[in-house]
């Protein structure tokens, strides 16, 4: 077991899948010569050549659509959006084309494409560059949506995504690329639709995904010093959502907090909360607390930006609130 970064884990997954399957190729802005805007694809051009590591013009709608078309013939493109924000110009190809290929053609075509896209705030990238948009994708039947928080899940989910026969939105986080973690060596995949209990606890269920998992773990560590035992669950997969694991935990703890990075309203957390209420209403001893970003376009100024994004402290406060502390 090696300790590697989230970035390396992603790269390893790409390399392994490309080694194994000649139909897998990587495409996007600056993935080749530039070695990746965030260096995830570093070294890939040298290793696999121009045929399979393809720099595109700045034309997200064009190359996402091209990827989907290639996938319709059975190739397995891994398309990188430099950041998820640029997905907005490709939304029609993602949500109204790729996502619908299988269904609207009665299952006679499929679209096995992965769209990798980092998002998130905290780097002063401001309003047009700090989105997560998880809920936009999660809303669309026909897409699968995953968002790993640690290197092992990054690798395992990316391999699963590449092998999946559907369009998968693979949501990374800019702030996670340099984080490290142990990744099992050799063949390692993580199935879709399985949340992961990242820390076992008994007093409160704390649900998060992507970077917020790290904050949740920090909050849990802090709370354990006050003898509050928090169970931290990482959604990992947003669509499909693993309601069972969430509900099971809440049935045990009777309390629940959900932390999501982006806007507090209308996000993934709303669906998670509504689902838990539906399935575990009688088990809840307190309303679910939702911790989310302040609802503003992301400001540039550091103190403002920091005030927008949920902090471990805010999560701690929310957990205590469910305990009426």
């Amino acid at each position: 077991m090696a300790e590697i970064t989230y970035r390396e884990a992603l790269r390893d997954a790409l390399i392994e899948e490309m080694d194994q399957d000649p139909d897998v190729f990587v495409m996007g802005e600056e993935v080749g010569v530039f070695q990746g805007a965030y260096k995830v694809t570093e070294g890939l051009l040298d290793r696999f050549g121009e045929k399979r590591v393809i720099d595109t013009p700045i034309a997200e709608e064009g190359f996402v659509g091209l990827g989907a078309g290639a996938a319709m013939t059975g190739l397995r493109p891994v398309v990188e959006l430099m950041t998820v924000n640029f997905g907005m110009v490709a939304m029609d190809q993602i949500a109204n084309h790729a996502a619908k290929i299988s269904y609207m053609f009665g299952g006679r075509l499929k679209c096995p494409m992965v769209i990798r896209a980092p998002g998130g705030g905290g780097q002063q990238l401001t309003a047009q560059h700090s989105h997560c948009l998880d809920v936009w994708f999660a809303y669309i039947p026909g897409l699968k949506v995953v968002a790993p928080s640690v290197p092992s899940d990054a690798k395992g989910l990316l391999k699963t995504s590449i092998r999946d026969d559907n369009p998968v939105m693979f949501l990374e986080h800019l702030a996670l690329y340099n984080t490290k973690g142990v990744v099992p060596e050799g063949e390692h995949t993580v199935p879709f639709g399985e949340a992961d209990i990242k820390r076992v606890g008994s007093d409160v269920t704390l649900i998060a995904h992507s970077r917020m998992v790290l904050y949740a773990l920090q909050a849990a560590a802090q709370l354990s010093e006050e003898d509050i035992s928090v169970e931290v669950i990482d959604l990992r997969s947003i669509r499909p959502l693993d309601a069972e694991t969430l509900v099971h935990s809440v049935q045990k703890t009777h309390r629940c907090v959900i932390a999501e990075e982006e806007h507090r309203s209308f996000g993934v957390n709303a669906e998670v909360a509504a689902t838990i209420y539906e399935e575990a209403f009688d088990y809840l001893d307190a309303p679910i607390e939702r911790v989310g970003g302040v609802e503003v376009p992301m400001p540039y100024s550091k103190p403002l930006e920091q005030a927008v994004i949920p902090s471990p402290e805010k999560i701690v406060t929310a957990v205590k609130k469910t305990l009426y502390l």
Partner: protein
Amino acid sequence: MSRSSARDARDNPTDQVTDMEFPVRDSGDLDNYENDQLIDFYTSMLYVRRFEERVAEMYLRAKIGGYCHLNIGEEATVVGTLKALRKEDYFFGSYRVHGSAIVRELPHGTVMAELFGKRDGCAKGRGGSMHLVDPERRFMGGYGIVGGSIPLSTGVSFAIKYRGTNEIVMSTFGDGATNIGAFHEALNIASLWKLPNLFICTNNQYGMGTSVARASAVTELWKKGVAYDIPGYKVNGMDVLAVYQLTKKLVEEVRRTSEPIFVECVTYRYRGHSMADAGKNYRTADEIDEWRERDPVESFRLRLLEGEIFTQKDADDIEEAVLAKVQTAVDFAERSPFPDVAELEKFVYAEDA
């Protein structure tokens, strides 16, 4: 600061345009074709016409619903382009795609059944009029978003190149689609990466109620390839032989060079944009009549008679056979059951198929 001359433009392969005059007979001598082929073109055009007329009737009888766009008036373009394509080549269409589907020889009953929303429809009743499909015939689907299929089509030509095989992709769209971003992005990439795409713009003069001149700064649409160094051609889309002859040549040129080419087929739709549009408040009756005089089916019939390729009796027999064939499609559609509601969630994901 001197202005350079038109040097660059002269050297530019995009300045190729086929001359076009209406009405035309300049599409080469009938002698260049086997009789069978000429009759096949005629029969196909007539079949598109009669099929669409029947579709209209079925729409009014509420057997067909939703958006429904007919090819009536555009038969020469539909037949002339599709007949030039090889079996192994791929086709992408817009939402106005019934004609292409039947010329591509999708089992015609499955096309009508799809319009009826029936289980035996080519998209199992999920797609309807706009989303006809048949991967076995490399008919890669009709699409509802203007311009949306163009990037997808470059993906298939990319895959051809990736695999090193020898097919081409025919990617068709309307005049209105040339104004949307997806068109621009896809054409640039196709040219840059030398993808084997034959782009066919069916210029039927209108995008819904908006004439080309009210939607596009450049009205000579074949020139739009210029911005991407894609050679452009224009052809009389009311003359099946002109369309076929040009397309046939270009299909093989694209195959040989693996470089995209752009063709503008100038034609007209007689009916409204869709069954919901009478097609009258944005154009004159005179204009429609003028185009009807160049009717692709009728003018070709006269030409074949004149050229003694067939007799009026032959034409009548064809008419009868075509009507009978349309009837078999309708019968097939009628007989097919509606999809099972229990299978509603099938096909959302590939593993459920």
